[in-house]
């Protein structure tokens, strides 16, 4: 049973420039006091990445996130993958979450392909036995054969992606989080990768997909959220939400 509930969740990101990071400016700020400080010379800028977002997701929901760049899609995905704790509001996420943001996370270029499979699967939350059980599946899917015995620094970019994709999609989470549908490798591999990703989406109880491609949202999702300026504008059927988003984008373009 997977369940996601956001209740007025906000995320405020403080962006520090070099001065904000420095201890000296912090000490000066505390000791000299605010009176002397020029307000326009603030070294810390606060960005409201998510602004009081509320929604609920249940088993079977395939939710697409649409919105322009900087609308808060990625921040929302990070909240959903438990990486960003909300700075205010409440978030409750039940179920095993897996996010495919960075396929090559935690890979060690000097370790062999096999060692990387083990390391990566443990990072995805497997125990040792499960990690070993994943190996045949990755072997078969990546078709890297004896290259898996070599350090992955000897791999080409395409081979690296094959391995990373195969491992990342070997573990099936309850809640799957995708930032764009990933296309990898040559035509033959891309086709198999697509099938594998579809199977993974099928098996997940809840799926979130942020995408700029309308056809991806239409084909994978049964619900869509439109984000703008960190706020959740509309929550509804994909075609309605996409239409509203397109109308808004058009209005702003004129």
């Amino acid at each position: 049973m997977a369940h996601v509930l956001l209740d007025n969740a906000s995320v405020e990101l403080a962006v520090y420039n070099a001065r904000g990071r420095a201890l000296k400016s912090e000490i000066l700020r505390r000791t000299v006091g605010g009176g002397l400080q020029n307000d326009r010379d603030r070294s810390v800028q606060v960005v409201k990445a998510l602004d009081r977002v509320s929604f609920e997701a249940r088993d079977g929901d395939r939710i697409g996130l649409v919105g322009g760049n900087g609308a808060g899609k990625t921040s929302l995905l990070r909240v959903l993958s438990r990486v960003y704790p909300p700075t205010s509001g409440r978030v409750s996420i039940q179920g095993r979450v897996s996010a495919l943001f960075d396929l090559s996370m935690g890979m060690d270029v000097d370790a062999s392909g096999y060692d990387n499979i083990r390391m990566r699967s443990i990072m995805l939350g497997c125990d040792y036995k499960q990690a070993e059980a994943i190996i045949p599946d990755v072997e078969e899917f990546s078709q890297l054969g004896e290259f898996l015995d070599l350090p992955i620094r000897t791999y080409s970019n395409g081979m690296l992606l094959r391995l990373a994709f195969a491992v990342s999609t070997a573990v099936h989470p309850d809640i799957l989080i995708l930032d764009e549908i990933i296309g990898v490798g040559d035509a033959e591999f891309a086709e198999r990768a697509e099938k594998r990703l579809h199977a993974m989406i099928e098996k997940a109880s809840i799926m979130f997909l942020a995408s700029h491609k309308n056809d991806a949202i239409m084909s994978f999702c049964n619900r869509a959220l439109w984000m703008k300026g960190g706020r959740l504008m509309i929550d509804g059927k994909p075609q309605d939400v996409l239409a509203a988003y397109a109308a808004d984008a058009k209005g702003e373009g004129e």
Partner: protein
Amino acid sequence: MGLVAGGAADVIGAFGAWRMWWMLAKNDVVRRYRRSRVGQLWLTLSMAVMIFGMGAVYATLFGTPLADYLPHLGTSLVLWGLISSTITESCSSFTENEGIIRQVALPRFSYLLRTIAKNLFIFAHNLIILPFLYVLTASPINWHILLFIPGLLLVLANLAWIGYMLAILSARFRDIPQIVTSIMQLAFFVSPVVFKPSQLRGDHPVLVLNPFSSMLDVMREPLLGNLPGAASYLILLGLLIAGWLLCLAFAGKYSHRVVYWL
């Protein structure tokens, strides 16, 4: 109190994620020497060279016989390596794991445990030198050696809270690692590593007010066949309790902000 509970939940959760940090720490050590012929033995070799090199110079400077001075220096250097590198590397526990922290939700303390475990592996390699050193110099070994284990645990438990606070602070203020490195360099010279505590008065501030002296004392003296001072245990226990309470409250308040600072 709520803050302390929040910090404690993070620390307890980190022990539950042991597979992850254990594996990463092991890989950290293996990776450094994967393509070298002597492999992990380099750790041991360079420490051995350091001990005998410094030993020859300082035994002459202090006018003590080499057989008397070497066990002290060798043991101190190996132990100091553990203390000092754990503290300095703790500072980058979060900044170096940025990629993982931004993708997987794990208790923050797990990354500290990675740093500590890695340094323990390295420490274990260096520890190999000591039996040879003790046989070579005919250093007395007796039942006091059993006290080494509780001493080590007491020190590690203290390093853990120091490291956790430093890691959080370093994620926010990027000057902290440099400051800590300078402090640890100074600490090397004002702690009884090169010199023996007996060369100072027992109540000298360097021995009483410097917690590193106590850390060295509870680990080194058992290995050299002596009983550590009761004061050292009291100081470390006091630090352990006060430090962890402070650290848990601090972590409860700030550890969830770490991801926003990276």
